[in-house]
């Protein structure tokens, strides 16, 4: 595992002499509508040898190959979904930057909702409990130090 990361890091360093250069002029499709779709799909696909870059951003040769694959499929007349399925069949779900909703990723997708709902529930409970206690909470008596500070303040006036 550790080695794998090391290899990945080294791969990226060798491909990415610093920044990334993404789509090159030669790759662009002549049909602007298809090219637009190609770009939309590219930002959803991970460059597999890089650290958190989409193939749209990456200049790694593998990312370039994938961009070309996406464009090939589009030119061949695939729908966006078909292209994605084609890519996932070959590279696995790891390539999707937006993980699909399934059992394993359920928790990921519902987290915002769960946290929001739990927070709301907590607020409701706290508020109802509070409004039942109508008596004003008695302020804690002052400590000696506080009383002294208060006297000082009052003297100052």
């Amino acid at each position, binding site marked *: 595992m*550790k080695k794998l*990361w*090391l290899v*990945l*890091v080294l791969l990226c360093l060798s491909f990415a*002499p*610093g*920044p*990334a*250069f*993404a*789509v*090159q*002029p*030669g790759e*662009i499709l002549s049909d602007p509508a298809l090219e637009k779709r190609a770009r939309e799909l590219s*930002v*959803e696909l*991970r460059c597999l040898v890089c*650290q*958190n*870059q*989409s193939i749209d*951003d990456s*200049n790694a040769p593998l990312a370039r190959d994938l961009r070309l694959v996406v464009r090939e499929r589009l030119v061949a007349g695939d729908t966006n979904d078909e292209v994605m399925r084609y890519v996932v069949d070959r590279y*696995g*779900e*790891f*390539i*999707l*930057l*937006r*993980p699909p909703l399934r059992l*394993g*990723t359920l*928790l*990921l997708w519902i*987290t*915002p909702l769960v*946290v*929001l709902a739990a*927070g*709301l529930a907590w*607020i409701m409970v*706290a*508020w109802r409990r*509070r*409004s039942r206690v109508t008596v*004003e*909470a008695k302020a*804690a008596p002052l400590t000696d*130090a506080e009383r002294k*500070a208060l006297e*000082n*303040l009052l003297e*100052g*006036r």
Partner: protein
Amino acid sequence: MIVETGHYALVLAFALCLVQMVVPLWGSLTGDRTLMAVAAPVSLMQFALVALSFAALTYAYLVSDFSVLNVIENSHSQKPLIYKISGVWGNHEGSMLLWVLTLSLFGALVALRAKRMPEDLAATALSIQSWVLGAFLLFILLTSNPFARVGAPPMEGRDLNPLLQDPGLAIHPPLLYLGYVGLSITFSFAAAALIHGRIDAQWARWVRPWTLIAWMFLTVGISMGSYWAYYTLGWGGFWFWDPVENASLMPWLAATALLHSALVMEKRDALKIWTILLAILAFSLSLLGAFLVRSGVLTSVHSFANDPQRGVFILAILVFFIGGSLSLFAFRVQSLKQGGIFAPISREGALVFNNLLLTTSCATVFVGTLYPLALEAVTGDKISVGPPFFNLTFAPLFVPLFLAIPIGQLLAWKRGDILGAVQRLAFAVGMAVVAGLILAFARGEPVLSVLFAGLAVYVIVGAFIETWGRMTAGGYSPALMWRRAIGLPLSQWGAAIAHAGAGVTLFGLAATGWGVERIVGMKPGDNVNLGPYTVTLEDVERRKGPNYVETAAHMTIREGGVVVGKLDPSRKFYAHRSMTTTEAGLRTIELGQVHIVIPEQNSDGSLDVRLYWKPYVTLIWIGSIFMFLGGGVSLADRRLRIGYARRPRQPKGQPAPAPAE
């Protein structure tokens, strides 16, 4: 010798931490004032020693002392002065030293103000701060010694990673650390309050300025980092939802929530449990960020120290402090009494709503960042969670938040009138609609950009409705309005400016939808249309810099035949590291920018060129400056001024001046 002095100073600082960890804490528990009095001077001494240590390392960099391993690995005698200095923290060991320097700085600042706080609270907080400082000093001394020498010094160093040879490195980490580490003080105060079981509005008043300072620096730190990535990473992006970016965003979201909940605690003595918990969480997320960045458990473009041993050490620090503070919290939570009562529709209610959404978004980032790691550990499945996920989950949380900002500002404490607030916002809504229509007409698609820009205008205008209302309450004569404006509490102006800043940033984000991108091969003499402009490649030049060779393209930007600017984007080749970086050509025109990168020179002499026209893009960062300024103005408010308990000095026999309100 100087280098050894630095190392020794660090060891001494650690020894002082050991004293500080026990003596003032014991004093505060037993009520021994002599023991408590130790805290402030020891904190100042710690800062002096860590600063000395930092200065020693800086000196080693300045004179290019290649007998120090850290200098060999990250410096070069021919490097420009600014990068010799910023190179000090451009590596793992040095950045840890900056981290402890900031930790001790905040300790020292609190020590200077300690006289104005209850002495047991100050002593305990300084003691807790030393626990944190001590842990990180030990980490440096045991695993990441920046002062290690080598037996046979080389003639020349290996130079700093060229990506880091940028003014960004001089600015971004120090600002970010002031923010990250500034939250440690809030944490220390929270732990101290829990230890003494005295958690009240007064506590919030002492702690809020520190949170505000940390938040201000975190805001600009993140924003400057984003701008740095924008102009160096070469593809015009400014936020990548990278784990390291997320690691800085989480404490920011928590700190923003804390800032608002502490306000409720200060004014109304309510939300106490929650505020204390947030104070603990905010710094815990800072620690988590440090762990994520330095352990290398998550792959990121930023990670620079993938050493498992260090990772385990930081993990231990993380577990100790988060576990310890949360246990303390659990132990005390029963004894906490709830304070002020309020209706759901009230200023407090609005701030609770703010906290709910900010906390949810923070949890979303947290889960999104760590989920792949957890899933792989549990099921072995590898998934990616990238920008599409975060963009999709963030927008629904932030839209209601932005909608609520101006409303919340107009609600009264305890019981508010939402209908009245909405009515008072009619002008802001009107402005938003007008702006939306103008933009829809002038710029058109995408619809989302128009909507978000409209929302931004509503937030910006709405932010000032309250202050405007108060200014004009006595009529519209300019002199009177001016007098009333300066009479308003500064914290109110601060809030308005900061909220407007959030709107400004939102506008910049919305406008990215109107950007134009061109990717073309160009030869000298070629023209490209880029939105309203025409860009010409004049010629290509090779030049030699101090430690690099560069290929620069001279480009001219014209609008309707008139030259509006010249750019020379370049590629730099650093021989010492055999690395290439690209320097984007940036020209700010009004609030937008033309951004040109030359990724590649082809064999036939043509250049691959990426050109962007990004209207209003600078607003993204300008907004953060407004947020920073808003924080500063608020900090200057006399009621918030750190430790404002001091009696005002006044000549005898004269009546005290009336309070400003």
